[in-house]
């Protein structure tokens, strides 16, 4: 129940199979959840909860992008259908990526904390902000100049 003493004596030597693995390892962890528990020591529960809140914040970001996709379609009815669908699909795709990446990053952070390694760095936030900026500029241009198209 307390979550801080279920790891037992296995701190994991270098020959432990769970230590090996390349870039595909994070993906495999998604579908073999018990393996996360096997590695390293259980971190302080507060760190796990902080990681969980970060995960939820990314899920909310994904939900906001999906909501933006709906909003483009519902609240800009005068745009040409192609433009509207394109913008909406771009936002929805960003939302999907964001949700998938949220799980991936959460798993990687959790694993790094168990092993006592540095937390993973990521360029996803930069890419996402650039994508959102591009969509925003496109939307401004479209709303200002493309209002006539039906």
């Amino acid at each position: 129940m307390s979550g801080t003493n279920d790891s037992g004596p296995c701190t994991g030597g270098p020959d432990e199979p769970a230590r090996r693995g390349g870039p595909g390892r994070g993906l495999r962890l998604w579908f073999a959840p018990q393996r996360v528990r096997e590695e390293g020591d259980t971190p302080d529960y507060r760190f796990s909860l902080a990681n969980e809140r970060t995960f939820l914040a990314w899920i909310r970001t994904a939900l906001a992008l999906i909501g933006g996709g709906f909003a483009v379609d519902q609240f800009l009815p005068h745009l040409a259908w192609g433009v509207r669908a394109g913008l909406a699909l771009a936002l929805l795709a960003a939302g999907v990526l964001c949700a998938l990446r949220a799980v991936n990053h959460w798993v990687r952070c959790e694993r790094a904390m168990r092993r006592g390694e540095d937390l993973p760095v990521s360029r996803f936030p930069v890419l996402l902000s650039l994508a959102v900026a591009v969509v925003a500029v496109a939307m401004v241009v479209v709303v200002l100049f493309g209002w006539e198209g039906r």
Partner: protein
Amino acid sequence: MTGGARDPGLQPERTRLAWRRTTLSFTVVALLALRQVLRAGLGAAGTVALALGLLAWLGFLRVAHRRVGGMGAAEPAPLMVRHALAAAVCTVVLAVCAAVMLF
């Protein structure tokens, strides 16, 4: 940390509220999906997409409910991978439903 002691940083409470916020966001987007289908008329594809989206919403509610229930412990256990995965999958399903509703 001794069991039963309150965390001075209120971490479980903050995590519980984070789940609540996320559930609320999910509900807003699900309502947007409902509005989308009501506006466009109930086509076959739209109805199926809406049903799937509502299922995703229920699935997310379930995960969130269980997790919030687990936050009552003094030192909550870490989030399970399958619950995190389920939350993300529900979000992705909602996005796919949204894409279907565009057409």
